[in-house]
């Protein structure tokens, strides 16, 4: 933290020195970007900078200013449509679209922030040129500047496009959603026909309140617990299952290990959405499994021991909350174990053989070898990926959505009031809130909370990976 403060301190100090000690060219650059380049006869650089400044000013006047002016209220002019009986057309007034104002304002703020960075960088660069000139050093021609972009400044060339993509696809959407969490954007306030506006922390409060009409607090608690249970169960079962299966197949006593491995691979070679949709129909209330179960008397047996409600004629595999949760975890094992087996196979093949040999010579049985040597080794290699898997499972949209959408109907009125189901994860709940009920404000709040949860888990793993200097070790 201290380091960061020092860095940002230096950042502005350098800027100050540049302004204070700069000559005419540098000082003129404060007003006309590029002036400093002209002073050093870098005409093309100067022209580029001037062009940039003109484009920026145009953007400010025609794009940023009109949007930012309405940013405080998110628009005041309501959509109105007047039917003109003379021309038989309807006329629409010059209305405000709150969402577009929000989106454009955020993009505009982003552009302004980037421009400020470029502006400061420009002054510093121009000052650096002045210093070089005073010291009698060589000043790059434009051609040399371009060449530098493929050499010592290659990182700029390489990162520009990916960064633009990330800004467009990740950063701006995230900023928009964080902003939406503080507005009343929902079905009653849908642009273009209606306006929405800022409401402060109200949505966060709503998510944690419980009353007869608002049950978000109740649903959030229930779904959060199930999400964490699911993530833990899904991660551990597939991980352990994968290792056991890999160990079982790779064992010297197993004949034709390749054949067995291929058999399990067939199941995951089919795209996940196909298998999940298929399995959903496989276990449907009137599906094939239920027919077989009732034919062999399993349904009646489960009824007699009370696992299935006696007034049902089928096993509610995916329609009863408890059954559905168990089935989802089991189906996930079915989907996930072969993947984990493949990874575990790769890891197991690389176990140092000498350790296993010496343990065997010392008289350890295979059970001891597995727990004392194999498992610690596998955990060491795949440990970090366990937490990544855990976070992925918190956001495992496909398994839950494809298995339960259109199939599972909740009977809990409190959950139904907030459009949730017992088997929902936070992300599927969020998806339904937006995609079916247009409740963007609450969905955004949930998204922010999911992010905080995931971030907490991920940071634990990655602080070590990044901060530790391990990346140099392997070379």
């Amino acid at each position, binding site marked *: 933290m201290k380091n960061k403060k020092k860095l940002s301190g230096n950042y502005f100090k350098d800027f100050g020195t540049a302004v204070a000690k700069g000559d005419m060219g540098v000082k003129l650059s404060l007003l006309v970007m590029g002036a400093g380049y002209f002073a050093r006869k870098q005409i093309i650089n100067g022209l580029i900078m001037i062009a940039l400044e003109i484009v920026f000013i145009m953007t400010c006047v025609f794009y940023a200013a009109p949007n930012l002016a309405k940013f405080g209220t998110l628009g005041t002019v309501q959509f109105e449509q007047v039917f003109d009986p003379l021309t038989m057309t309807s006329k629409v007034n010059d209305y405000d679209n709150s969402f577009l104002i929000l989106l454009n304002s955020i993009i505009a703020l982003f552009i302004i922030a980037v421009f400020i960075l470029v502006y400061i960088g420009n002054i510093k660069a121009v000052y650096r040129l002045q210093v070089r000139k005073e010291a009698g050093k060589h000043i790059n021609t434009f051609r040399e500047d371009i060449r530098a972009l493929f050499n010592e400044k290659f990182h700029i060339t390489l990162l520009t496009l*990916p960064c633009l*993509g990330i800004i467009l696809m990740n950063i701006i959407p995230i900023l928009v959603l964080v902003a939406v969490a503080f507005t009343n954007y929902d079905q009653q306030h849908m642009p273009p026909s209606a306006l929405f506006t800022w409401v402060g922390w109200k949505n966060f409060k709503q998510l944690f309140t419980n009353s007869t009409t608002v049950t978000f607090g109740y649903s959030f608690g229930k779904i959060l617990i199930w999400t964490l249970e699911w993530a833990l169960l899904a991660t551990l079962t597939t991980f352990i299952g994968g290792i056991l299966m890999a160990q079982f197949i790779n064992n010297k006593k197993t004949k034709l290990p390749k054949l067995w491995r291929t058999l399990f691979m067939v199941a995951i070679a089919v795209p996940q959405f196909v298998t999940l949709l298929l399995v959903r129909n496989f276990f449907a209330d009137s599906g*094939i499994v239920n027919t077989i179960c009732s034919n062999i008397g399993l349904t009646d047996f489960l009824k007699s021991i009370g696992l299935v409600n006696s007034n049902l004629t089928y096993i509610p595999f995916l329609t009863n909350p408890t059954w559905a949760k168990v089935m989802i975890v089991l189906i996930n094992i079915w989907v996930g174990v072969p993947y984990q087996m493949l990874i575990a196979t790769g890891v197991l093949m690389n176990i140092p053989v000498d350790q296993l040999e010496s343990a065997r010579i010392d008289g350890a049985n295979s059970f001891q070898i597995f727990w004392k040597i194999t498992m610690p080794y596998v955990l060491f290699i795949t440990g970090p990926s366990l937490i990544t898997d855990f976070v992925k499972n918190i956001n495992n949209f496909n398994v839950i959505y494809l298995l339960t959408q259109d199939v599972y109907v909740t009977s809990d009125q409190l959950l139904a009031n907030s459009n949730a189901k017992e088997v929902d994860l936070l992300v599927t709940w969020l998806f339904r809130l937006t995609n079916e009920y247009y409740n963007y404000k609450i969905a955004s709040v949930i998204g922010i909370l999911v992010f905080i949860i995931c971030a907490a888990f991920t940071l634990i793993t990655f602080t070590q990976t990044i901060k530790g200097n391990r990346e140099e070790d392997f070379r």
Partner: protein
Amino acid sequence: MKKTVGSIVRHLVLAFLAVIWLVPILWLVVTSFSGYKGINTAHFFPETWSLNNYKALFFEPDSVVQYGAWFKNTLIIAIFTCIVSTSFVLMVSYTMSCLRFKGRKGLMSFGIILNMFPGVLSMIAVYFVMKSIGLTNSHLGMIIVYSAGAGLGYLITKGFMDTISTSLREAAWLEGASEATIFFKIIIPLSQPIIVYTIINSFLVPWGDFVLAKLMLNSGIATDWTIAIGLFNMLNKSLVNKYFSIFCAGGVIVSIPISALFVLMQKFYVEGVTGGSVKG
């Protein structure tokens, strides 16, 4: 004697597990050859066999089934997504792994934190961004959505590049090669396994993705869809009884190229990832 019993038990257990893993797939395949259109709930194996479902898939397009168009859409999107995302991933991972510049670690941590934001959530905002520039329901829009953020998934490739010896690059430096030359002539050829992995991985995204496509391709016109949405739509409550076996046929067809690529990818994944990390 004890040995053979153990061996039989071991293989029986494996066979039992294999059956569990294969039964749904078997059901998929046999249903796709069924002469009956909807779900056969009474028998595991169809009572009449026919190739009608495959014929319907390719030669009898209607308002619900447009398999040829879906395949073409998905293929086009997949090819361009694959090119763009692989280049982005390579560019970012090379920068983060081999180049040293101010703010590198800051950028890396920032990327990781950004990547933790649930994709499903930002999708809705992505949809609005794309809608405001008029790119929903288009191939270009899908390609952008799938590939623009690809740079964030650099960790695995970077990990692999971290294992490439620095002395190679230093030698090239001394010979006067520029960073760009080193990137194209040394690092890329040496990273082959992980590049193949990245290529196949990004190629598979549009074939398996469901959520994003459902949000972005919302025109309701079947010819615009990708395979995933098309097949999902067939299982709609009102359609499932008419189209279930066609869905199965579609599932079988899409699995063939995908599984081939998948097997290939796993080979390179194991080679690239575990090969890289085990050295530590």
